């Protein structure tokens, strides 16, 4: 919910900023505000999902890394 809100407000703000850059009244072309609000909300949600997926993948990678390091250290100790 918070991701949607933040994304939507960023998208809306971005359209205000685009209009300001183009020296237009800030609320000119209201359908563009709706479009960017939607894009912002969708992008923020996708980002949140992606982040959760990445967290899981990175945790697995770290587990794998620790296991590899442990087995490597064990092999060295055995050799000694």
């Amino acid at each position, binding site marked *: 919910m918070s991701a949607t809100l933040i994304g939507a407000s960023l998208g809306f703000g971005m359209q205000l900023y685009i209009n300001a850059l183009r020296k237009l009244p800030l609320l000119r072309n209201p359908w563009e505000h709706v479009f960017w609000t939607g894009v912002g909300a969708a992008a923020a949600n996708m980002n949140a999902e992606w982040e959760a997926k990445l967290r899981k993948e990175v945790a697995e990678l770290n587990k794998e*890394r620790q296991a590899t390091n442990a087995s490597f250290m064990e092999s060295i100790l055995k050799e000694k």
Partner: protein
Amino acid sequence: MMGLHFIHLFENDFYALFPELFLTCTTMLLLMFGVVWSTSKAEGYPILTHTIAWLSVWSLVCAFGLTIHSPFSVMVSFYNTFVIDELTFLLKAMVLCSATAAMLMSMEYLKTSMLNIFEYSILVLLSTISMLLLISSYDFISMYLAIEMQSLCFYVLAASKRHSEFSTEAGLKYFLLGAFSSGVLLFGCSLVYGYTGLTNFEDIAKCLAGSALFQTHHSFLHLGMGLIMIGFLFKLTAAPFHFWAPDVYEGSPTSVTAFFAITPKIALLGVFLRLLLGSFYDLLFAWQYVLFFCSICSLFIGAFGAMAQKKIKRLLVYSSIGHVGYLLIGICCGTVEGLQAVLLYLILYIFMTVNVFTIVLSCIDHSKTFRLKYIQDLGLLGQTHPVLALTFSCTLFSMAGIPPLAGFCSKFYLFFAAMGSSLYGLALFGVLSSVVSCFYYIRLIKIMYFEQPSQLVTYGAIDHEKAILLGITTTVIVFFFLCPHSLFLWTYKVAYMFLG
């Protein structure tokens, strides 16, 4: 049965390079369309620059879609000539996004600067294809061919403003010095081949594995590796091999300069990383010295060279030389954290460069005759276009590494990676150079708000494409610190999968 098996393998090879093949076919179709239509007497010899530019943008967007929906995550294809992994995926996505941005920001420039050549978009597409191939290349031969294809497109692009002497000079200079660096690179490759008898990156890595332990290096191998590094550093505009860049970037049309500054660095750095951290990883202590020296030179020349500049394009070139110095710090580390810092820095650097060049291309007066050329032309931009001045100030602060903007986050991470690898001197020099570079970035802000321009100009409204580009890049630059996790995790995953 054997035949069927072969066909299956061959098919998969083509799936692996589907975005490149798609872009190649589209480029050929657009070229034919342009040649046939623009010479059509019945149609009145139409100017197709804008149409083909938009079609090129759409084909780049489609190629991006194909790249992110690739059926393979890791694969070696075409008899070990090309590779696909997490690193290539990240870099290809960046190349396609930045090429799209470069095309979008040059739309208005193509119209107003009378660059009525539809070949401009074709050349951008061809160079993008070669960059994609370069990122995927896994062999000296495919690497060299991709670099040459890219360079040939760049020489023509640099000289594309045919009525301008500066542009022609830039194209010629680029051609001569680019050919020289390609020669050095090829000589280096041939020496490495002479020593190892191999051209494949992975095979070279296997051949050199453990050589550091047993001290079995051959001077020819070191010389070959050194020449390859010089060739790449030359193309990456790292000091002391940077001297061609200010003249070429200044003489080229501004849209081409933007493209040169944004896109090729990604591809070249990608293959450079693969070579150093893959094939020559066992020679880390040999190449680390070279990169250490080049990094310090680039930081020094980038920081102090920019101070003396009066033209905006030259200043941005020196700034980019400085940024290459920061990127080299990360490569010097030779660790997962170092590679992660390089990738993070590269992504944010692309956002900042797109933003800066969009602003430079946006500064055109109402009559479309006066363009921003000298730094002093930015005078009173704070009064004539306050939103643009504010945006430019934010980006310059970010480039200088002022918190909490995106540039600070990337530098912060880079310096920590350097300290993690005991490169304290390099980290300290990076911090000092960052402080010095603040001087010329803040000087620009001072001019925008407090100084009179050499010629009083009121810059006009910005076109829609550039405004959207500025909107997206400024949002990332300003709000990155609120949610950096995804990018951190992604770059960590890519770096770990490559080096771990």
